[in-house]
């Protein structure tokens, strides 16, 4: 090799390396089969760091339950997964497509990811049926007839077919949350994200929502749930994740997680929420 080329190559070697690292080394082959993959994700709100070096993989059909004290970054993490918030460093991919602020594919990506919010966030000016059909009609381009048929089908699945023509504020919290689940399902999503879906509900309504979520899990949906419902977690989770102060502290299958977690903090947290 000519000496000047050699010198040039040596001078810029680190650049090449970092590009390779960004593209491949930090995102190795085995993670690409995962439907969701996060690698070394950091997230800041101003000076406050909400996520520290979080890495996590979710395979197709896997059910992941994330728990942890409030302010530990659970919600932030799943909100980064469908681009409602953007991480500052690291890589998050959904089906191999990167999620970031500049991505033009973000709306397309979100069509495959359903999200259920703590506060339901139904559209108050639309009837239940319209809430369910607006996504398929406006985003997926499904015909109105087909969208309505699909909507009624999913309302059946969440056990409230008779509420189709009411408005959201005429329904109870539990019913609203089930509509919100059906709204996401109507988009025929591959992944469902749940951000504390039962936290805003009255106690007597929690089970009706959890039952729907269990049925959904049984149908083979890929799910990531942030929740404190440990009974539900034990029933459906393939993987339990415990987060604290922006870090993933413990990742374990539920058997091990509930009986013999590795970290002391996790044990303490579980004893606090399972005590009574």
């Amino acid at each position, binding site marked *: 090799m000519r000496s000047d080329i050699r010198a040039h190559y040596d001078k810029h070697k680190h650049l090449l390396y970092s590009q390779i690292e960004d593209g491949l080394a930090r995102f190795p082959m085995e993670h690409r089969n995962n439907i969701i993959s996060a690698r070394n994700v950091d997230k800041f709100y101003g000076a406050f760091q909400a996520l520290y070096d979080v890495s996590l993989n979710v395979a197709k059909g896997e059910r992941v339950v994330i728990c942890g004290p409030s302010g530990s970054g659970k919600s932030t993490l799943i909100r980064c997964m469908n681009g409602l918030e953007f991480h500052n460093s690291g890589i998050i991919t959904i089906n191999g497509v990167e999620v970031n602020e500049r991505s033009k594919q973000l*709306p397309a990506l979100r069509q495959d990811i359903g999200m259920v919010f703590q506060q339901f*966030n139904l559209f108050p*000016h639309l009837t239940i049926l319209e809430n369910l059909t607006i996504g398929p009609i*406006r985003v997926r381009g499904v015909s109105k007839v087909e969208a309505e048929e699909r909507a009624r089908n999913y309302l059946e699945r969440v056990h409230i077919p008779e509420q189709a023509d009411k408005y959201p504020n005429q329904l109870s919290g539990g019913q609203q949350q089930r509509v919100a689940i059906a709204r996401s399902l109507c*988009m025929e999503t591959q992944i469902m994200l749940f951000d504390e879906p039962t936290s805003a509900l009255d106690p007597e309504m929690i089970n009706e929502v959890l039952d729907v979520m269990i049925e959904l899990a049984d149908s083979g949906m890929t799910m990531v749930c942030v929740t404190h419902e440990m009974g539900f977690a034990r029933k459906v989770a393939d993987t339990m994740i415990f987060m604290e102060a922006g870090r993933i502290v413990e990742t374990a299958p539920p058997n091990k997680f509930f009986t013999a977690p590795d970290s002391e903090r996790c044990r303490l947290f579980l004893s606090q929420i399972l005590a009574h």
Partner: protein
Amino acid sequence: MPKFLKRLHWLDILILVILAVFVAVIWVRIDGTLNYKWRWDRIPNYILRYSTKYETWVPNVLLQGFIATIRISIFASILALILGVILGIARCSTNLTVRMLARTYLEFLRNIPPIVVIFIFYFFLSEQLITALNIESWARGIARQENNAVWEFLFGDMRRFPSLVSGIIVLALFESAFVGEIVRAGIQSIPKGQHEAAKSIGMGRIDTLRYIVLPQALKKVTPPLANQFITLVKDSAIISLISVQELTFKTVELVASTRLIFEAWLTTAALYFVLCFSLSMLFRRLERKSDQR
């Protein structure tokens, strides 16, 4: 004794008596000092007159002006609503240039007296616009046609069309600034969760605005928008300064030719009051009805 009289305190009665005395004093001053000769009997003729040519009752100056004011208000409101919604959306845009342009427009119109805005617009822009679009000869063409009933119904005398258009546009521009602020407030009052829910089902920004945010925002701001509409009706008096033939302009003309100063202006005031007050009652009723749902 009627029930409402029993609810009056002696202080209320005192205040009413003072007011009555005040009104009486003014009345006496007008009647005596000015030596004004009331000729109320002449007013009805300036509202409706009997045309011997067509052998029917036709509107005279005051009613003509009143109808023109209603026309101008309706067209200017529609235009102001369209411009205002665009302005409100622009104010919430993520694009800095768009936001700054909207802000500039708004601040100009808000911080210059309406009369000045109207003169500037009339002498600089409207002349250019009307000449460029050749509106004048087009309108004359229609005025000469035989069956121009629809045009006459919509815009009145087509020979006056150019000045009517200037009036409508300038009024709409002026009011759109306020409509824009109302719409912006409405858009910003929609909770973040609604945007997030729309995003999470894959809706883009435009769809979110069109199907989720705007319908809710506009419903929320209907009461202040209705108020702004009433303000617009009152503001329409200003465009009499650029010779638009509406109620105030017609009254000025009438007073100049007949010297019925008090009668004409009081009648005009009553007409404006009836129009605006019934509008405000109507909106209040509509609002109550929509709350019930």
